[in-house]
Protein backbone atom coordinates (compact mmCIF):
# COMPACT_ATOMS: atom_id res chain seq x y z
CA UNK A 1 0.00 0.00 0.00
CA UNK A 2 1.61 3.20 -1.14
CA UNK A 3 -0.49 5.11 1.40
CA UNK A 4 1.45 3.61 4.23
CA UNK A 5 4.93 4.20 2.87
CA UNK A 6 7.10 7.20 3.59
CA UNK A 7 6.21 10.08 5.80
CA UNK A 8 3.37 10.35 8.27
CA UNK A 9 3.33 14.12 7.94
CA UNK A 10 4.75 16.00 5.00
CA UNK A 11 4.42 19.65 4.12
CA UNK A 12 6.02 21.59 1.33
CA UNK A 13 6.26 25.36 1.37
CA UNK A 14 3.40 25.50 3.86
CA UNK A 15 2.59 29.16 4.48
CA UNK A 16 -0.11 31.03 6.34
CA UNK A 17 -0.55 34.77 6.30
CA UNK A 18 -3.10 36.54 8.48
CA UNK A 19 -3.40 39.90 6.75
CA UNK A 20 0.12 41.34 6.71
CA UNK A 21 1.49 39.00 9.34
CA UNK A 22 3.20 35.82 8.23
CA UNK A 23 2.34 33.24 10.89
CA UNK A 24 3.95 30.28 9.14
CA UNK A 25 6.60 30.84 6.50
CA UNK A 26 7.14 28.14 3.87
CA UNK A 27 7.90 25.25 6.17
CA UNK A 28 8.68 21.72 5.03
CA UNK A 29 7.83 19.34 7.82
CA UNK A 30 8.90 15.73 7.43
CA UNK A 31 7.72 13.35 10.13
CA UNK A 32 8.75 9.76 9.41
CA UNK A 33 6.37 6.92 10.26
CA UNK A 34 6.89 5.55 13.75
CA UNK A 35 8.72 8.67 14.92
CA UNK A 36 8.03 10.64 18.04
CA UNK A 37 8.50 14.10 16.61
CA UNK A 38 9.04 16.93 19.06
CA UNK A 39 7.69 20.11 17.51
CA UNK A 40 9.38 22.86 19.46
CA UNK A 41 9.33 26.60 19.54
CA UNK A 42 8.47 29.52 21.76
CA UNK A 43 4.86 30.59 22.19
CA UNK A 44 3.73 32.42 19.08
CA UNK A 45 6.28 30.81 16.78
CA UNK A 46 3.60 29.28 14.54
CA UNK A 47 3.33 25.75 15.94
CA UNK A 48 -0.41 25.80 16.57
CA UNK A 49 -1.20 27.46 13.23
CA UNK A 50 0.85 24.75 11.54
CA UNK A 51 -1.05 22.05 13.41
CA UNK A 52 -4.36 23.68 12.50
CA UNK A 53 -3.33 23.63 8.85
CA UNK A 54 -2.32 19.98 9.09
CA UNK A 55 -5.74 19.10 10.52
CA UNK A 56 -7.67 21.08 7.91
CA UNK A 57 -8.98 23.70 10.35
CA UNK A 58 -7.09 26.53 8.71
CA UNK A 59 -6.56 26.84 4.97
CA UNK A 60 -2.92 27.53 4.04
CA UNK A 61 -2.10 30.62 2.00
CA UNK A 62 0.35 28.52 0.00
CA UNK A 63 1.99 25.13 0.00
CA UNK A 64 0.92 21.50 0.21
CA UNK A 65 0.40 19.09 3.07
CA UNK A 66 -0.28 15.41 3.42
CA UNK A 67 -1.13 13.17 6.35
CA UNK A 68 -0.25 9.46 6.25
CA UNK A 69 0.49 9.84 2.56
CA UNK A 70 -2.98 11.26 1.82
CA UNK A 71 -3.13 14.77 0.37
CA UNK A 72 -5.04 17.33 2.42
CA UNK A 73 -7.67 18.56 2.15
CA UNK A 74 -8.68 16.33 -0.79
CA UNK A 75 -8.67 13.12 1.23
CA UNK A 76 -9.14 14.60 4.68
CA UNK A 77 -11.99 12.25 5.57
CA UNK A 78 -9.84 9.16 5.18
CA UNK A 79 -6.75 10.75 6.69
CA UNK A 80 -8.23 12.45 9.72
CA UNK A 81 -10.07 9.34 10.85
CA UNK A 82 -6.65 7.77 11.41
CA UNK A 83 -5.36 10.85 13.22
CA UNK A 84 -6.04 11.58 16.87
CA UNK A 85 -5.53 15.18 17.82
CA UNK A 86 -5.30 17.59 20.68
CA UNK A 87 -5.38 21.19 19.50
CA UNK A 88 -4.75 24.14 21.78
CA UNK A 89 -6.09 22.61 24.95
CA UNK A 90 -9.17 20.62 25.79
CA UNK A 91 -12.67 21.81 24.78
CA UNK A 92 -15.83 19.98 25.75
CA UNK A 93 -19.43 20.67 26.63
CA UNK A 94 -19.31 21.72 30.28
CA UNK A 95 -22.68 20.29 31.30
CA UNK A 96 -22.07 16.85 29.82
CA UNK A 97 -20.13 14.14 31.62
CA UNK A 98 -16.72 13.04 30.41
CA UNK A 99 -18.21 9.89 28.94
CA UNK A 100 -21.08 11.75 27.23
CA UNK A 101 -18.61 14.14 25.67
CA UNK A 102 -16.62 11.25 24.21
CA UNK A 103 -19.86 9.60 23.07
CA UNK A 104 -20.75 12.77 21.18
CA UNK A 105 -17.40 12.82 19.37
CA UNK A 106 -17.77 9.14 18.54
CA UNK A 107 -21.31 9.71 17.24
CA UNK A 108 -19.92 12.37 14.92
CA UNK A 109 -17.57 9.85 13.30
CA UNK A 110 -19.32 8.15 10.38
CA UNK A 111 -16.51 5.61 10.20
CA UNK A 112 -16.84 4.53 13.84
CA UNK A 113 -18.81 1.39 14.64
CA UNK A 114 -21.63 2.29 17.05
CA UNK A 115 -21.70 -1.28 18.39
CA UNK A 116 -18.22 -0.94 19.85
CA UNK A 117 -18.60 2.67 21.00
CA UNK A 118 -19.14 1.86 24.69
CA UNK A 119 -16.14 -0.41 24.88
CA UNK A 120 -13.87 2.00 23.01
CA UNK A 121 -14.92 4.96 25.16
CA UNK A 122 -14.27 3.03 28.36
CA UNK A 123 -10.92 1.82 27.04
CA UNK A 124 -9.88 5.38 26.16
CA UNK A 125 -10.99 6.69 29.57
CA UNK A 126 -9.17 3.85 31.26
CA UNK A 127 -5.99 4.53 29.35
CA UNK A 128 -5.81 8.09 30.71
CA UNK A 129 -6.98 7.09 34.19
CA UNK A 130 -10.35 8.85 34.04
CA UNK A 131 -12.68 5.87 34.25
CA UNK A 132 -13.58 6.62 37.87
CA UNK A 133 -14.58 10.20 36.96
CA UNK A 134 -16.37 9.27 33.71
CA UNK A 135 -19.81 10.23 35.01
CA UNK A 136 -18.78 13.57 36.45
CA UNK A 137 -19.75 16.67 34.54
CA UNK A 138 -16.88 18.14 32.57
CA UNK A 139 -17.25 21.47 34.37
CA UNK A 140 -16.33 19.73 37.64
CA UNK A 141 -13.07 18.41 36.15
CA UNK A 142 -9.73 19.87 37.18
CA UNK A 143 -7.46 21.24 34.47
CA UNK A 144 -5.43 18.04 34.55
CA UNK A 145 -8.55 15.88 34.16
CA UNK A 146 -9.69 18.03 31.23
CA UNK A 147 -6.35 17.54 29.54
CA UNK A 148 -6.62 13.79 30.08
CA UNK A 149 -10.12 13.73 28.62
CA UNK A 150 -8.82 15.48 25.51
CA UNK A 151 -6.12 12.83 25.16
CA UNK A 152 -8.78 10.14 25.66
CA UNK A 153 -10.76 11.71 22.80
CA UNK A 154 -7.69 11.36 20.59
CA UNK A 155 -7.59 7.64 21.44
CA UNK A 156 -11.23 6.81 20.66
CA UNK A 157 -10.31 4.88 17.55
CA UNK A 158 -7.06 3.13 16.64
CA UNK A 159 -4.82 5.85 15.26
CA UNK A 160 -1.80 5.78 13.02
CA UNK A 161 -0.85 9.34 13.91
CA UNK A 162 -1.35 11.42 17.02
CA UNK A 163 -1.00 15.19 16.82
CA UNK A 164 -0.73 16.51 20.35
CA UNK A 165 -0.46 20.25 20.83
CA UNK A 166 0.98 21.02 24.28
CA UNK A 167 -0.40 17.82 25.83
CA UNK A 168 1.11 18.46 29.25
CA UNK A 169 -0.27 21.98 29.70
CA UNK A 170 -1.80 22.33 33.13
CA UNK A 171 -0.63 18.95 34.35
CA UNK A 172 1.25 18.51 37.61
CA UNK A 173 4.71 16.88 37.42
CA UNK A 174 3.22 13.46 38.04
CA UNK A 175 0.63 13.97 35.32
CA UNK A 176 3.34 15.21 32.96
CA UNK A 177 5.31 12.03 33.58
CA UNK A 178 2.20 9.91 33.00
CA UNK A 179 1.53 11.63 29.67
CA UNK A 180 5.15 11.06 28.66
CA UNK A 181 4.83 7.38 29.55
CA UNK A 182 1.55 7.20 27.63
CA UNK A 183 3.11 8.76 24.53
CA UNK A 184 6.02 6.32 24.86
CA UNK A 185 3.69 3.31 25.04
CA UNK A 186 1.61 4.54 22.10
CA UNK A 187 4.75 5.05 20.06
CA UNK A 188 5.95 1.56 20.89
CA UNK A 189 2.68 0.26 19.39
CA UNK A 190 3.80 1.84 16.13
CA UNK A 191 1.78 5.05 16.30
CA UNK A 192 3.54 8.09 14.93
CA UNK A 193 3.37 10.99 17.39
CA UNK A 194 3.81 14.66 16.66
CA UNK A 195 3.98 16.46 19.98
CA UNK A 196 4.38 20.19 20.21
CA UNK A 197 5.71 22.01 23.21
CA UNK A 198 7.34 25.23 24.22
CA UNK A 199 8.99 23.36 27.07
CA UNK A 200 11.86 21.34 25.75
CA UNK A 201 12.38 19.36 28.95
CA UNK A 202 8.91 17.89 28.62
CA UNK A 203 9.55 16.19 25.34
CA UNK A 204 13.29 15.78 24.93
CA UNK A 205 13.36 12.42 26.74
CA UNK A 206 10.77 10.77 24.51
CA UNK A 207 11.49 12.21 21.07
CA UNK A 208 13.27 10.46 18.26
CA UNK A 209 13.01 13.50 15.97
CA UNK A 210 12.88 17.23 16.48
CA UNK A 211 11.62 20.21 14.55
CA UNK A 212 12.29 23.67 15.89
CA UNK A 213 10.20 26.69 14.93
CA UNK A 214 11.20 30.29 15.24
CA UNK A 215 9.06 33.20 14.10
CA UNK A 216 7.15 31.07 11.63
CA UNK A 217 10.19 29.33 10.19
CA UNK A 218 11.38 25.79 10.71
CA UNK A 219 14.98 26.46 11.77
CA UNK A 220 16.06 22.89 12.46
CA UNK A 221 14.69 19.44 11.76
CA UNK A 222 15.91 15.86 11.90
CA UNK A 223 16.67 13.06 14.33
CA UNK A 224 17.62 14.20 17.79
CA UNK A 225 21.28 13.41 17.14
CA UNK A 226 21.23 15.18 13.79
CA UNK A 227 19.79 18.30 15.35
CA UNK A 228 22.11 18.03 18.31
CA UNK A 229 25.05 17.39 15.96
CA UNK A 230 24.47 20.80 14.52
CA UNK A 231 25.76 22.32 17.75
CA UNK A 232 29.46 22.63 18.71
CA UNK A 233 31.14 20.57 21.44
CA UNK A 234 31.61 22.29 24.79
CA UNK A 235 34.45 21.72 27.21
CA UNK A 236 33.77 22.13 30.92
CA UNK A 237 36.40 22.41 33.64
CA UNK A 238 35.53 22.25 37.32
CA UNK A 239 38.22 23.89 39.46
CA UNK A 240 38.96 26.01 42.55
CA UNK A 241 40.89 28.50 40.36
CA UNK A 242 38.41 29.41 37.61
CA UNK A 243 40.17 32.65 36.65
CA UNK A 244 43.49 30.91 36.09
CA UNK A 245 41.79 28.15 34.16
CA UNK A 246 39.97 30.68 31.99
CA UNK A 247 43.30 32.32 31.11
CA UNK A 248 44.81 28.97 30.14
CA UNK A 249 41.83 28.07 27.97
CA UNK A 250 41.85 31.43 26.22
CA UNK A 251 45.58 31.15 25.52
CA UNK A 252 44.99 27.72 23.97
CA UNK A 253 42.51 29.27 21.57
CA UNK A 254 39.27 28.01 23.18
CA UNK A 255 36.45 30.29 22.11
CA UNK A 256 33.68 31.90 24.14
CA UNK A 257 35.32 31.10 27.46
CA UNK A 258 32.91 31.78 30.33
CA UNK A 259 33.24 31.38 34.07
CA UNK A 260 30.27 30.34 36.10
CA UNK A 261 30.82 29.53 39.78
CA UNK A 262 33.45 26.84 40.05
CA UNK A 263 33.17 25.96 36.39
CA UNK A 264 34.74 27.27 33.24
CA UNK A 265 33.36 26.35 29.86
CA UNK A 266 34.16 27.17 26.28
CA UNK A 267 34.12 25.86 22.75
CA UNK A 268 37.37 24.03 21.96
CA UNK A 269 36.85 23.80 18.21
CA UNK A 270 39.41 21.42 16.71
CA UNK A 271 41.55 21.45 19.85
CA UNK A 272 42.18 18.01 21.39
CA UNK A 273 40.83 17.65 24.93
CA UNK A 274 44.00 15.88 26.17
CA UNK A 275 46.06 18.97 25.34
CA UNK A 276 43.70 21.18 27.35
CA UNK A 277 44.03 18.98 30.45
CA UNK A 278 47.80 18.84 30.05
CA UNK A 279 48.01 22.63 29.68
CA UNK A 280 45.85 23.15 32.77
CA UNK A 281 47.96 20.80 34.88
CA UNK A 282 51.16 22.36 33.53
CA UNK A 283 49.88 25.82 34.55
CA UNK A 284 49.26 24.52 38.07
CA UNK A 285 45.49 24.69 37.92
CA UNK A 286 43.90 22.01 40.07
CA UNK A 287 41.38 20.19 37.91
CA UNK A 288 38.48 18.70 39.88
CA UNK A 289 36.47 17.66 36.90
CA UNK A 290 36.72 17.80 33.13
CA UNK A 291 34.20 16.99 30.44
CA UNK A 292 33.60 17.45 26.75
CA UNK A 293 30.02 17.32 25.54
CA UNK A 294 27.95 18.52 22.69
CA UNK A 295 25.73 21.42 23.61
CA UNK A 296 22.77 20.41 25.73
CA UNK A 297 19.52 20.39 23.83
CA UNK A 298 18.42 23.19 26.10
CA UNK A 299 21.39 25.38 25.01
CA UNK A 300 20.74 24.46 21.42
CA UNK A 301 17.06 25.29 21.70
CA UNK A 302 17.84 28.71 23.11
CA UNK A 303 20.48 29.24 20.43
CA UNK A 304 18.03 28.29 17.66
CA UNK A 305 15.05 30.19 18.94
CA UNK A 306 16.94 33.26 20.04
CA UNK A 307 14.71 34.85 22.59
CA UNK A 308 14.52 31.64 24.58
CA UNK A 309 11.07 31.14 25.96
CA UNK A 310 9.78 34.63 25.37
CA UNK A 311 6.88 35.22 23.09
CA UNK A 312 8.06 36.07 19.62
CA UNK A 313 6.30 37.92 16.84
Amino acid sequence: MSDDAGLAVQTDGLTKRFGQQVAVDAIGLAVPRGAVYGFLGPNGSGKTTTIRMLLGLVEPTAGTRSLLGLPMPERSGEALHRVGSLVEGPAFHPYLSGRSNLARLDAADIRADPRTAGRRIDAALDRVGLLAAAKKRYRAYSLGMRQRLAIAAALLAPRDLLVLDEPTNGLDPQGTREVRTLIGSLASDGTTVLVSSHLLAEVEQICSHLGVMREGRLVAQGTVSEVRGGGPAVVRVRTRQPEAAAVVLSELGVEQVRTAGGEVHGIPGALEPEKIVAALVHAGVGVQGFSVSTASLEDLFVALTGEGFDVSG
Partner: protein
Amino acid sequence: MSAAEAGVVTGRRAVATTRPRWSTRLLRSELRLIAGRRRNQMGLLVLASVPIVMAIAVKVSEPEQGRGPDFLSSITSNGLFVPLAALGVEIGMFLPLAIAMLAGDAVAGEANIGTLRYLLTVPVHRTRLLAVKYASLCIGAVVGVMAVALPGAVIGIALFGTGPLTTLSGSQIGPGTAVWRLVLVMLYLASGLAGLAAVGLFISTLTEQPIAASIALLIFTILSWILDAVPQLGWLHPWLIVHEWMAFGDLLRDPIAWESVLRGLFINGAYAVVFWLAAWARFSSKDITS
Protein backbone atom coordinates in the same frame (compact mmCIF):
# COMPACT_ATOMS: atom_id res chain seq x y z
CA MET B 1 -3.18 -12.38 0.04
CA SER B 2 -5.59 -14.95 1.43
CA ALA B 3 -8.76 -13.99 3.21
CA ALA B 4 -7.27 -15.12 6.51
CA GLU B 5 -4.21 -12.92 6.08
CA ALA B 6 -6.39 -9.99 5.12
CA GLY B 7 -8.32 -10.56 8.33
CA VAL B 8 -5.14 -10.45 10.36
CA VAL B 9 -3.81 -7.36 8.63
CA THR B 10 -6.99 -5.35 8.90
CA GLY B 11 -8.14 -6.93 12.14
CA ARG B 12 -6.95 -4.14 14.41
CA ARG B 13 -8.94 -1.51 12.60
CA ALA B 14 -11.94 -3.70 11.81
CA VAL B 15 -12.93 -3.74 15.48
CA ALA B 16 -13.55 -0.03 15.64
CA THR B 17 -14.09 1.04 12.10
CA THR B 18 -16.61 0.46 9.42
CA ARG B 19 -16.97 2.04 6.04
CA PRO B 20 -18.35 5.56 6.04
CA ARG B 21 -22.08 5.24 5.82
CA TRP B 22 -25.21 7.24 6.25
CA SER B 23 -26.02 7.48 9.92
CA THR B 24 -28.32 9.51 12.16
CA ARG B 25 -25.97 9.21 15.14
CA LEU B 26 -24.74 12.79 14.93
CA LEU B 27 -28.26 14.16 14.54
CA ARG B 28 -29.44 12.14 17.53
CA SER B 29 -26.44 13.32 19.52
CA GLU B 30 -27.22 16.90 18.53
CA LEU B 31 -30.84 16.55 19.62
CA ARG B 32 -29.80 15.02 22.95
CA LEU B 33 -27.41 17.91 23.44
CA ILE B 34 -30.16 20.47 22.79
CA ALA B 35 -32.76 18.61 24.85
CA GLY B 36 -30.38 18.05 27.74
CA ARG B 37 -29.58 21.69 28.18
CA ARG B 38 -31.35 23.15 31.21
CA ARG B 39 -31.88 26.51 29.52
CA ASN B 40 -33.71 24.88 26.60
CA GLN B 41 -35.92 22.89 28.96
CA MET B 42 -36.83 26.12 30.74
CA GLY B 43 -37.57 27.71 27.37
CA LEU B 44 -40.02 24.94 26.52
CA LEU B 45 -41.75 25.49 29.85
CA VAL B 46 -42.12 29.19 29.08
CA LEU B 47 -43.55 28.39 25.63
CA ALA B 48 -45.99 25.92 27.19
CA SER B 49 -47.04 28.25 29.99
CA VAL B 50 -48.57 30.88 27.67
CA PRO B 51 -51.59 28.83 26.47
CA ILE B 52 -52.15 27.60 30.00
CA VAL B 53 -52.18 31.14 31.41
CA MET B 54 -54.44 32.30 28.57
CA ALA B 55 -56.92 29.45 29.02
CA ILE B 56 -57.15 29.96 32.76
CA ALA B 57 -57.50 33.73 32.39
CA VAL B 58 -60.34 33.32 29.91
CA LYS B 59 -62.02 30.72 32.09
CA VAL B 60 -61.85 32.95 35.14
CA SER B 61 -63.09 36.10 33.41
CA GLU B 62 -64.86 35.98 30.07
CA PRO B 63 -63.31 38.60 27.78
CA GLU B 64 -65.31 41.41 26.25
CA GLN B 65 -66.23 40.79 22.64
CA GLY B 66 -64.03 42.41 20.00
CA ARG B 67 -61.01 42.95 22.17
CA GLY B 68 -57.75 41.03 22.47
CA PRO B 69 -56.08 38.72 19.98
CA ASP B 70 -58.09 37.20 17.18
CA PHE B 71 -59.10 33.89 18.63
CA LEU B 72 -59.35 34.80 22.26
CA SER B 73 -63.06 35.49 22.12
CA SER B 74 -63.69 32.18 20.36
CA ILE B 75 -61.96 30.14 23.03
CA THR B 76 -65.08 29.55 25.09
CA SER B 77 -66.88 27.99 22.14
CA ASN B 78 -64.14 25.44 21.37
CA GLY B 79 -61.04 24.41 23.36
CA LEU B 80 -58.99 24.09 20.16
CA PHE B 81 -58.94 27.87 19.90
CA VAL B 82 -56.63 27.94 22.93
CA PRO B 83 -53.61 26.55 21.02
CA LEU B 84 -54.48 28.71 18.00
CA ALA B 85 -54.67 31.87 20.11
CA ALA B 86 -51.45 30.96 21.92
CA LEU B 87 -49.62 30.29 18.63
CA GLY B 88 -50.84 33.65 17.33
CA VAL B 89 -49.36 35.37 20.36
CA GLU B 90 -46.08 33.44 20.54
CA ILE B 91 -45.16 33.45 16.84
CA GLY B 92 -44.48 37.18 17.24
CA MET B 93 -41.63 36.93 19.68
CA PHE B 94 -41.35 33.85 21.93
CA LEU B 95 -41.00 31.25 19.21
CA PRO B 96 -38.44 33.30 17.20
CA LEU B 97 -36.58 33.84 20.49
CA ALA B 98 -36.42 30.08 21.02
CA ILE B 99 -35.03 29.60 17.51
CA ALA B 100 -32.54 32.42 18.12
CA MET B 101 -31.19 30.70 21.23
CA LEU B 102 -30.78 27.36 19.44
CA ALA B 103 -29.25 28.96 16.34
CA GLY B 104 -26.77 30.89 18.47
CA ASP B 105 -25.60 27.65 20.05
CA ALA B 106 -25.45 25.78 16.74
CA VAL B 107 -22.16 27.05 15.33
CA ALA B 108 -21.13 30.11 17.35
CA GLY B 109 -21.74 28.21 20.60
CA GLU B 110 -19.52 25.32 19.53
CA ALA B 111 -16.87 27.75 18.32
CA ASN B 112 -17.08 29.66 21.58
CA ILE B 113 -16.24 26.69 23.80
CA GLY B 114 -13.85 25.23 21.22
CA THR B 115 -15.74 22.00 20.56
CA LEU B 116 -16.10 22.99 16.90
CA ARG B 117 -12.43 22.25 16.17
CA TYR B 118 -12.72 18.82 17.73
CA LEU B 119 -15.88 17.99 15.78
CA LEU B 120 -14.18 19.00 12.53
CA THR B 121 -11.08 16.93 13.24
CA VAL B 122 -13.12 13.80 14.10
CA PRO B 123 -13.55 14.39 11.09
CA VAL B 124 -17.02 15.69 10.31
CA HIS B 125 -17.35 17.18 6.85
CA ARG B 126 -18.32 20.83 7.16
CA THR B 127 -21.30 20.48 4.82
CA ARG B 128 -22.56 17.52 6.79
CA LEU B 129 -22.15 19.37 10.09
CA LEU B 130 -24.09 22.32 8.74
CA ALA B 131 -26.82 20.01 7.41
CA VAL B 132 -27.13 18.23 10.76
CA LYS B 133 -27.16 21.55 12.62
CA TYR B 134 -29.92 22.85 10.35
CA ALA B 135 -31.94 19.66 10.62
CA SER B 136 -31.80 19.90 14.40
CA LEU B 137 -32.95 23.53 14.25
CA CYS B 138 -35.90 22.51 12.07
CA ILE B 139 -36.80 19.78 14.53
CA GLY B 140 -36.43 22.39 17.26
CA ALA B 141 -38.92 24.59 15.38
CA VAL B 142 -41.46 21.74 15.24
CA VAL B 143 -40.93 20.91 18.91
CA GLY B 144 -41.30 24.59 19.83
CA VAL B 145 -44.62 24.84 18.02
CA MET B 146 -45.74 21.59 19.62
CA ALA B 147 -44.75 22.88 23.05
CA VAL B 148 -47.28 25.67 22.55
CA ALA B 149 -50.03 23.74 20.75
CA LEU B 150 -50.19 20.46 22.66
CA PRO B 151 -50.50 21.84 26.21
CA GLY B 152 -52.86 24.46 24.75
CA ALA B 153 -55.06 21.78 23.17
CA VAL B 154 -55.08 19.69 26.33
CA ILE B 155 -56.03 22.51 28.68
CA GLY B 156 -58.40 24.05 26.13
CA ILE B 157 -60.33 20.82 25.67
CA ALA B 158 -60.28 20.19 29.42
CA LEU B 159 -61.72 23.63 30.22
CA PHE B 160 -63.94 24.34 27.22
CA GLY B 161 -64.58 21.00 25.50
CA THR B 162 -64.66 20.33 21.76
CA GLY B 163 -67.85 21.26 20.07
CA PRO B 164 -68.05 21.83 16.33
CA LEU B 165 -65.52 24.51 15.45
CA THR B 166 -66.83 27.73 13.92
CA THR B 167 -64.44 28.72 11.15
CA LEU B 168 -63.49 32.29 10.37
CA SER B 169 -65.89 32.03 7.42
CA GLY B 170 -68.75 31.37 9.80
CA SER B 171 -69.42 27.76 8.84
CA GLN B 172 -68.89 24.86 11.21
CA ILE B 173 -66.48 21.94 10.87
CA GLY B 174 -66.41 18.75 12.91
CA PRO B 175 -63.84 18.11 15.66
CA GLY B 176 -61.82 15.66 13.50
CA THR B 177 -61.41 18.22 10.72
CA ALA B 178 -60.65 20.87 13.29
CA VAL B 179 -57.71 18.86 14.63
CA TRP B 180 -56.35 18.50 11.12
CA ARG B 181 -56.63 22.26 10.63
CA LEU B 182 -54.65 22.76 13.86
CA VAL B 183 -51.94 20.40 12.56
CA LEU B 184 -51.78 22.37 9.31
CA VAL B 185 -51.38 25.62 11.27
CA MET B 186 -48.59 24.05 13.31
CA LEU B 187 -46.73 22.85 10.21
CA TYR B 188 -47.15 26.23 8.52
CA LEU B 189 -45.74 28.13 11.49
CA ALA B 190 -42.92 25.58 11.88
CA SER B 191 -41.98 26.22 8.24
CA GLY B 192 -41.71 29.93 9.01
CA LEU B 193 -39.49 29.24 11.98
CA ALA B 194 -37.39 26.88 9.85
CA GLY B 195 -36.83 29.71 7.35
CA LEU B 196 -35.83 31.97 10.22
CA ALA B 197 -33.54 29.24 11.56
CA ALA B 198 -31.55 29.33 8.29
CA VAL B 199 -30.96 33.05 8.86
CA GLY B 200 -29.90 32.22 12.41
CA LEU B 201 -27.55 29.49 11.21
CA PHE B 202 -25.91 31.92 8.80
CA ILE B 203 -25.43 34.53 11.53
CA SER B 204 -24.07 31.79 13.77
CA THR B 205 -21.26 31.12 11.29
CA LEU B 206 -20.22 34.78 11.38
CA THR B 207 -19.29 35.02 15.05
CA GLU B 208 -17.87 33.07 17.97
CA GLN B 209 -20.30 34.67 20.43
CA PRO B 210 -23.55 32.67 20.72
CA ILE B 211 -25.34 35.48 22.55
CA ALA B 212 -24.41 37.94 19.82
CA ALA B 213 -25.78 35.56 17.19
CA SER B 214 -29.02 35.09 19.13
CA ILE B 215 -29.50 38.82 19.62
CA ALA B 216 -28.75 39.50 15.96
CA LEU B 217 -31.45 37.06 14.87
CA LEU B 218 -33.88 38.58 17.34
CA ILE B 219 -33.13 42.04 15.94
CA PHE B 220 -33.67 40.64 12.45
CA THR B 221 -37.08 39.32 13.51
CA ILE B 222 -38.18 42.49 15.30
CA LEU B 223 -37.01 44.62 12.38
CA SER B 224 -39.02 42.44 10.00
CA TRP B 225 -42.16 42.94 12.10
CA ILE B 226 -41.57 46.70 12.29
CA LEU B 227 -40.98 47.03 8.54
CA ASP B 228 -44.05 44.90 7.94
CA ALA B 229 -46.09 47.38 9.99
CA VAL B 230 -45.00 50.45 7.98
CA PRO B 231 -47.57 50.92 5.17
CA GLN B 232 -45.23 53.14 3.13
CA LEU B 233 -42.94 50.12 2.69
CA GLY B 234 -45.64 48.09 1.00
CA TRP B 235 -43.31 47.10 -1.87
CA LEU B 236 -41.02 45.43 0.66
CA HIS B 237 -43.68 43.51 2.57
CA PRO B 238 -43.97 40.49 0.25
CA TRP B 239 -40.24 39.83 0.78
CA LEU B 240 -40.29 39.93 4.57
CA ILE B 241 -40.23 36.47 6.10
CA VAL B 242 -42.80 37.39 8.75
CA HIS B 243 -45.24 39.02 6.32
CA GLU B 244 -47.42 35.97 5.67
CA TRP B 245 -46.92 34.26 9.03
CA MET B 246 -50.20 35.60 10.37
CA ALA B 247 -51.92 34.17 7.31
CA PHE B 248 -52.17 30.95 9.29
CA GLY B 249 -55.70 32.17 10.09
CA ASP B 250 -56.57 31.44 6.44
CA LEU B 251 -56.17 27.76 7.24
CA LEU B 252 -59.22 28.13 9.48
CA ARG B 253 -61.48 29.32 6.70
CA ASP B 254 -63.95 27.09 4.94
CA PRO B 255 -62.79 26.25 2.36
CA ILE B 256 -59.14 26.97 3.17
CA ALA B 257 -57.85 30.17 1.51
CA TRP B 258 -54.55 28.88 0.17
CA GLU B 259 -53.18 31.93 -1.65
CA SER B 260 -51.44 33.73 1.22
CA VAL B 261 -50.39 30.46 2.84
CA LEU B 262 -48.72 29.23 -0.34
CA ARG B 263 -46.97 32.59 -0.76
CA GLY B 264 -45.82 32.28 2.85
CA LEU B 265 -44.51 28.77 2.27
CA PHE B 266 -42.62 29.98 -0.78
CA ILE B 267 -40.98 32.85 1.13
CA ASN B 268 -40.13 30.61 4.08
CA GLY B 269 -38.58 28.09 1.71
CA ALA B 270 -36.69 30.78 -0.20
CA TYR B 271 -35.21 32.14 3.05
CA ALA B 272 -34.25 28.61 4.07
CA VAL B 273 -32.44 27.89 0.81
CA VAL B 274 -30.75 31.27 0.36
CA PHE B 275 -29.50 31.59 3.93
CA TRP B 276 -28.48 27.96 4.25
CA LEU B 277 -26.36 28.39 1.14
CA ALA B 278 -24.94 31.62 2.53
CA ALA B 279 -24.09 29.79 5.77
CA TRP B 280 -22.46 27.03 3.73
CA ALA B 281 -20.46 29.47 1.61
CA ARG B 282 -19.20 31.14 4.75
CA PHE B 283 -18.59 28.04 6.85
CA SER B 284 -17.02 25.74 4.27
CA SER B 285 -14.11 28.10 3.68
CA LYS B 286 -13.79 29.57 7.15
CA ASP B 287 -10.53 29.31 9.10
CA ILE B 288 -11.38 27.78 12.46
CA THR B 289 -9.11 29.62 14.87
CA SER B 290 -11.31 29.28 17.96
